């Protein structure tokens, strides 16, 4: 491949090469690991039925997120996703906070995925009879390999995600067909379901982990500056993504809760793989193991893509040091942001406990969704329908925004029940970061140049 040398006056930008399939792979790729592991802790909180209620309530939350996101991002076609939306619609302090929510949510999720992958390889080593195996080399390799892939170009990165995510999704479909859900030969839901052992409080507590079925689908917006047709590809990729996840989540619940008693399912590490083992079929076991590995890889890969775009956008507007706003002239990726976030992910993956890392990610995501509800209300008020061109208009406004707010409030309470200290600690962190931004960093921001959208003046301004 020839290295071209830039001459004076030339510009480099991110490369517009992605289609709706890549957007789907980015969103579903980040999330699908939640079907393979994690969602089942909701069963431990309130029983299998509570996990199903949480699955659909969280599904409603994320359907609102996807619809709202699709409308706003089909208009604000810029890397940074919700950060860019906040900058244009709410203001700089909100944008700074949303940018941090994004970077932390994705970097923590990347670390959690790397920890999981290291654990899986270590487990395989143990099962193969090797003593004294370690997970750390594989944690580090996961992060370094995926950062390398991201560094070399977005097209290859998300095509890789498309292939491995599709395989992981098809593995769930095959398992669902293999357990013959239309008969009671394999699945025994009538024998295993036991109502709500902890009542409706258990359902509320299950909401914390119900989010795992879908956490990260909103990451599709980060591709806004790299898709060929933002107004078409982003809504199409995001909406097909949430439909895929709703199907995969419900199938996963039906397979697992029909095969395992809730006492086991509620604390299983790899429930879908365990379900395949219970069928007694070796090909299914291999398929679901591959699916587990691929879904974990796809999630970490998408997280690196999204965190680096958010960090890059903030650097480009000087919300952070401007050096992070650089684009690689050959690979056309935000290369400095990708490299900078590698040691951050390594530190968390190497030293932090898995549940703390995931909780930090979930809480950052929740803060982001709360912002999105307010954001869309302001967006429709300031730029009503007809004043600017939208690639997608979400229905029933403002109902989805209010449903989203109500579900976010419920989930905050659910997280508070289990991780109250972390919730407070994280709020304190974001308040301190906001004070730093307002008092020190804001004077460096390119105030005029940051608003690039060719929109008319907002109503009332």
């Amino acid at each position: 491949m020839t290295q071209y040398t830039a001459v004076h006056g030339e510009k480099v930008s991110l490369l517009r090469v992605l289609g709706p399939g890549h957007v789907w792979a980015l969103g579903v790729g980040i999330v699908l690991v939640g079907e393979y592991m994690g969602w089942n802790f909701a069963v431990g909180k309130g029983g299998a039925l509570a996990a199903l209620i949480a699955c659909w309530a969280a599904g409603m939350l994320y359907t609102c997120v996807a619809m709202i996101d699709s409308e706003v991002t089909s208009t604000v076609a810029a890397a940074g996703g919700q950060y860019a939306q906040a900058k244009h619609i709410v203001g700089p302090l909100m944008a700074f906070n949303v940018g941090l929510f994004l970077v932390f949510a994705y970097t923590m999720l990347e670390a959690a995925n790397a920890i999981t992958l290291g654990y899986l390889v270590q487990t395989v080593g143990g099962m193969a009879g090797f003593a004294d195996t370690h997970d750390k080399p594989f944690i580090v390799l996961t992060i370094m390999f995926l950062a390398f892939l991201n560094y070399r170009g977005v097209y290859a990165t998300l095509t890789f995600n498309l292939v491995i995510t599709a395989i992981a999704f098809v593995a769930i479909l095959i398992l669902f067909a293999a357990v013959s859900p239309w008969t009671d030969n394999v699945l025994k839901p009538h024998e295993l379901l036991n109502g709500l052992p902890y009542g409706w409080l258990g359902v509320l507590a299950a909401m914390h982990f119900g989010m795992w079925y879908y956490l990260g689908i909103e990451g599709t917006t980060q591709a806004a500056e790299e898709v060929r047709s933002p107004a078409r590809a982003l809504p199409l990729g995001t909406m097909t993504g949430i439909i895929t996840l709703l199907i995969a989540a419900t199938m996963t619940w039906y397979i697992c809760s029909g095969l395992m008693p809730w006492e086991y399912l509620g604390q299983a590490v790899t429930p879908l793989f365990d379900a395949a083992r219970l069928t007694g079929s070796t090909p299914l076991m291999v398929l679901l193991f591959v699916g587990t590995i691929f879904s974990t890889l796809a999630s970490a890969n998408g997280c690196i893509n999204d965190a680096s775009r958010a960090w890059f956008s903030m650097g480009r507007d000087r919300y952070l040091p401007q050096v992070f706003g650089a684009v690689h002239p050959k690979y056309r990726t935000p290369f400095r942001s990708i490299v900078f976030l590698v040691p951050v992910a390594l530190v968390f993956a190497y030293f932090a406990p898995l549940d703390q890392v995931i909780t930090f990610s979930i809480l950052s995501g929740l803060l982001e969704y709360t912002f999105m509800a307010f954001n869309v209300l302001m967006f429709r008020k300031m730029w009503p329908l007809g004043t600017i061109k939208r690639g997608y208009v979400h229905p029933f406004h403002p109902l989805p925004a209010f449903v989203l707010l109500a579900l976010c409030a419920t989930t905050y309470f659910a997280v508070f029940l289990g991780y109250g200290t972390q919730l407070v600690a994280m709020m304190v962190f974001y308040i301190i970061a906001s004070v730093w931004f307002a008092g020190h960093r804001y004077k460096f921001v390119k105030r005029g140049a940051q608003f690039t959208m060719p929109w008319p003046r907002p109503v009332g301004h």
Partner: protein
Amino acid sequence: MENLNNFQLLEYAAWGISALLGLWMLTDMIRTNRAHSEETLLSSKEGEIEDSLVIDPPHQGGHL
């Protein structure tokens, strides 16, 4: 070396590949920073639809 089992070899390989990938990214980043001006590297603008002024034409269209 005779005490090493296959899994330990795999672990050393993982460390080695990680180090190589990290070194490659660092080296390329330093070389890129030296080969191009900051003005060029930071020339990206938010939400640009027009891609006509970019360098590296073979990468237009995403052919791999």
